[in-house]
């Protein structure tokens, strides 16, 4: 049995032997290759082409109740814009069903007295827009773009009415506002969480479940040796997966890398520390692969998706949820990755993030050590 007193010292030969054994297990299991190399490619592809937050070609119905030339010209304006795919109708009852069925996301109603409204200086709205607000985001876009089409049409029609004061927006780091440029770095963080936390949790839980952990513990290897030997292959795997994903992001998906490669890899290494620690902790608590996978999903994967600020703004979350995000390593990783890709090596931002990840990692490994040593006594 190992002696707790000599736990801290690492025996390099033993660590390498254990790492070698673990690597063989990794290489021989096709599911690991699937998760580490195929899933990232699929995810990057989906984030680049499928999960677009830039709304284009939203299907809407254009109900033309008026026969006037002006009304027809406006309807043509709605048909011409690339934001909408317009389905023409004369009566709103023709298209209401499509709105309920989800085949249309909104209706633009050009009323019968459109010409009269246009001529009058009364403050009456010119047209009506109905949206399908079951998806509030799309509803907002439909209303916003409809306003844009109408304003453009008005401006082209008569002497342009410039508003006196207007905002001139500029998006730094991503001037074309392409959503995949900030989604792809986030996708890398999710993949790394799956590799770092889920995979580690599973492999260690498997040893416990099958009873082979006791066998390893009874060898001369110390707890430190065992943990280091277990983790080394997954660090390499995680870094390889990040490198591949980043390479694909830059070469295939046109995401710029304005920072440097060494910074990117350093960040990934810093993130792997808490991610692996979390995986180890889960496996020591669960000791059963099904429970470990559920815990990893709950505490690792979903937070990396939803609480890391890559899909939803952290600032907008309620205070208790915001407080939770501070202990989620992915929060620091997503922000840093987006910065390295789109802005550059902004050290005043990156250093505190790296520090936060390392602190969380240290805490997690401390907990692991506590738990594992206790289990040795049993």
């Amino acid at each position: 049995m190992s002696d707790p007193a000599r736990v801290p010292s690492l025996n390099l030969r033993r660590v390498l032997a254990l790492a070698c054994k673990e690597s063989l297990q990794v290489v021989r299991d096709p599911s690991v290759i699937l998760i580490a190399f195929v899933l990232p490619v699929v995810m990057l592809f989906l984030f680049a082409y499928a999960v677009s937050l830039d709304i284009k070609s939203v299907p809407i119905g254009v109900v033309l109740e008026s026969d006037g030339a002006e009304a027809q010209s406006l309807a043509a304006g709605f048909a011409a814009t690339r934001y909408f795919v317009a389905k023409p109708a004369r009566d709103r009852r023709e298209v209401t069903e499509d709105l309920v069925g989800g085949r249309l996301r909104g209706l633009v109603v050009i009323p019968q007295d459109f010409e009269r409204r246009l001529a009058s200086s009364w403050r009456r709205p010119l047209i009506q827009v109905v949206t399908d607000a079951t998806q509030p985001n799309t509803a907002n876009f439909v209303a916003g773009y409809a306003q844009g089409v109408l304003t453009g049409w008005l401006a082209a029609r008569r002497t342009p009415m410039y508003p006196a004061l207007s905002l001139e927006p500029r998006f730094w780091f991503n001037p074309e506002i392409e959503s995949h440029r900030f989604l792809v770095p986030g996708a890398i963080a999710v993949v790394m969480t799956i590799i770092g936390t889920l995979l580690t949790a599973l492999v260690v839980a498997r040893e416990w479940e099958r009873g082979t952990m006791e066998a390893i513990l009874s060898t001369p290897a110390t707890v430190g040796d065992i943990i280091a030997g277990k983790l080394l292959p997954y660090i390499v795997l995680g870094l390889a997966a990040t490198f591949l994903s980043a390479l694909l992001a830059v070469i295939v998906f046109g995401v710029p890398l304005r920072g440097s490669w060494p910074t990117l890899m350093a960040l990934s290494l810093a993130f792997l520390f808490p991610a692996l620690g979390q995986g180890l902790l889960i496996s020591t608590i669960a000791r059963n692969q099904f429970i470990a996978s559920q815990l990893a999903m709950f505490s690792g994967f979903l937070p990396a998706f939803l609480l890391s600020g890559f899909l939803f703004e952290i600032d907008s979350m309620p205070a208790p949820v915001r407080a939770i995000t501070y202990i989620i390593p992915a929060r620091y990783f997503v922000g840093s990755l987006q910065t390295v890709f789109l802005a550059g090596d902004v050290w005043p931002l990156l250093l505190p993030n790296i520090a936060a990840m390392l602190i969380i990692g240290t805490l997690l490994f401390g907990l692991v050590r506590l738990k594992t040593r206790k289990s040795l006594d049993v």
Partner: protein
Amino acid sequence: MSLLSPRLRAQIVKEMLCILRDPKSRYLLIVPPILQLLIFSFAATMELKHVEIGLYNRDAGRWGHELAARVGAAGFVRRVVPAHEESEIRRMLDTRAVLAALVIPETLSRDLAAQRPATVQIILDGRRANGGQVLLGYLNAIVAGLNAELPGQSGIGREILAVRHWFNPNLVYQWFIVPSLGGVLVMFITLAVTALSIARERELGTFDQLLVSPCTPLEIIVAKIVPAMLLGLLMGMIMASAGIFGYGIPFTGSYLLLSASLLLFIVSIVGIGLMVSSICATQQQAILGTFAIGVPTVLMSGFATPVENMPRVLQWLAEAIPLKHYLIILQGSFLKALPPEEVFAHAWPMAVIALVTLTVATIFVRGKLQ
């Protein structure tokens, strides 16, 4: 073979015990999904709140001050961070201290007083362009309000558009996210439980015992399916009830139709899970397989972004995703009083998927069993 032969019943009981025997896993099947729904439904919001905005006001006059005051007083702004030179703005944006920065030009008040058009620059963080675009919309509304009060500008603030948001007039984001997230969580848990069912037996070596038992392959498969289905149905009901009673989301559709759709959805997911399980030799493979299938499925289901935004080929592919159809029925049943023919239009694809996946899975498992 009678459907409830004692042999089959014994098998089902055994499978149920496999899932429910361990108190930890019993607890884990029910509690975390509900916690997840609770936390993530509050986190997942597209509205902006508590935003920090940088402000570099170079205008000493009245209007620059007025604009700054209005932005500062807006409900979505937590703090306006003043800057005194260009480089400070750059630093704030670089370090993500602010989401956006307003740069008000020296000539603003002069131009407006002389009724000349004026522009104010707003620099947004492209790394968070998502929130940035929403923020831009909010700020444009503030500017429009200011415009209406400028000298000689009567009529410009005119509302040219009457917008009505059907089914969710106040655009409450939770009305969208809670039912959908519930659907996603139910899918993941059902998929994981089914995918593990056969893979666990093979990893632990008990699969051979099943082979020598008097049970027919079909009985074994049915026994594997039933507990996962019951669990999926239960979770689906809990999630829907949480939406109705916990969040007070209006439910306008038919409970019966939704329950029937839930059943079809669960069966199709169980079919997929069983296929995964029959291919996998270990639990690890089954769990990783669940992720490899689950994650892309969620991304393409219309949960995160509308399906019609995707390229045509992926849209066709999405037709084969049960979650996509179920989400439409779910959202429609909650808010839209989805008529039966619309429910049916999305229910039959799930039935087809269920039929195909269950058949394929049965063939696979049979192959393994013989």
